[in-house]
């Protein structure tokens, strides 16, 4: 079997890559068997380690692509490469903030549906200010915003609603009313980018509250049902609208 020759990673940044492509990294990332660490190369050797993000896997001489999408690169902090791919199915990842729906109460633990292959578990002590006597008021069907503490392919995912210092920091039970709907994961990441235009334009329309879960779920609440539904429709449609179309639609609405 002839080994495939790879291409330099820097050349493909911003381009479409397919699974099976091999990306070669600059010389100073290679593992040296003889013990030489820093080779004097033309470019400056970045400090720190290279981060190999989702869609990429480490393989011998470089990085192997496992998902199709656009290759992205971040030069800061040691550098990071990842593949920006589109998918609708969520796979639990440690550290992600997600919206879960309570499906069952089993003793001391709640079972949440997060859109993955297994229901996640959430202990009743994982809320801010919860003790054995002071239990949180969670019913079946409630929405919960929390983060994953354990999430791998071998174990059932576990969630908590507090951070490492014991503060809730906005996590916990999401209040009454509002509207929950599902979008693709790529749109969520676009909306969570700093200075997202869609969010900025929407915030000029009406007062409303928004919770974005990395599992593709969005919860919206505004003053009236009509306003809520307008925001929902815009968020669902804005994935495939150009900025001009979006501005037109919003102008029509604010004119109303």
């Amino acid at each position, binding site marked *: 079997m002839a080994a495939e020759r790879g291409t330099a990673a820097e050349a493909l940044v911003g381009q479409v890559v397919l699974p099976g492509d091999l990306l070669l*990294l600059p010389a*100073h*990332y290679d*593992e040296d*068997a003889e*013990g030489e660490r820093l080779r004097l190369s033309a470019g400056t050797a970045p400090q720190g*380690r*290279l*981060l*190999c*993000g*989702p869609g*990429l*896997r*480490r393989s011998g001489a470089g*990085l192997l692509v496992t998902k199709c999408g656009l290759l*992205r690169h*971040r030069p800061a902090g040691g550098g*990071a490469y*990842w593949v920006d791919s589109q998918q609708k199915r969520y796979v639990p*990842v*440690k*550290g*992600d*903030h997600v919206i879960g729906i309570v499906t069952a109460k089993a003793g001391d633990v709640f079972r949440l549906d997060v859109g993955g292959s297994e229901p996640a578990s959430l202990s009743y002590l994982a809320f801010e200010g919860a003790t054995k006597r002071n239990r949180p008021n969670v019913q079946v069907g409630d929405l919960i*915003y929390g983060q994953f503490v354990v999430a791998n392919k071998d174990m059932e995912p576990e969630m908590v609603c507090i951070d490492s210092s014991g503060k809730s*920091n*906005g*996590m916990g039970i999401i209040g009454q009313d509002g509207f929950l709907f599902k979008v693709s994961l790529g749109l969520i*990441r676009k909306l*969570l*980018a*700093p200075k*997202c235009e869609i*969010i900025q334009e*929407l*915030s000029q329309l*009406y*007062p*409303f*509250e*928004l*919770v*974005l*879960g*990395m599992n593709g779920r969005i919860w919206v*609440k*505004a*003053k009236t049902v009509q306003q809520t539904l307008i925001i929902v429709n815009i968020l669902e449609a804005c994935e495939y609208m150009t900025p001009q179309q979006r501005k037109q639609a919003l102008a029509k609405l604010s004119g109303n």
Partner: protein
Amino acid sequence: MAGEVKTKLSKNLLRMKFMQRGLDSQTKKQLEEEEKKIISEEHWYLDVPDLKEKESCIIEERSFLQCEDLVYGRMSFKGFNPEIEKLMIKINSKCKEEEIEEDDKMEADVSDEEMARRYETLVGTIGRKFLRKRDQRVLKDDDEDDEVEEGNSNTRPSKRAKKMFLKPQD
């Protein structure tokens, strides 16, 4: 009868912390070394030549949070939910603070030398507060000793502590 049999204390008892407070540092060190020897002799090890660990410079990561700079997922606009708006401000200012910290260092109001000088005298005065009265007096005498020796030679070593009535000179 009483002095004949001395109860022998077990080794474990002697190894407890409260029995070792009275020992001096040398015997303590000896005991520690003996303990370490016992442990290291029982310690199992592989009789295999050392493989050099290849330290790789690539970390694999499945989360997008580490790669991209994502905002917190809970937001509120135009005052719909005041608590969440407060939280948004706090989180955003935390991000900005990290950026600013890298840039400039705050100028100190008091210079380092002055700080050291003040601290020197401060330690003495506060430390004296916690001494018992006798120690305080001794400390004060020592201070006076140093001062007086340079000055006049009028010395009344034992009775200086007592303040005698000073007769006014005519």
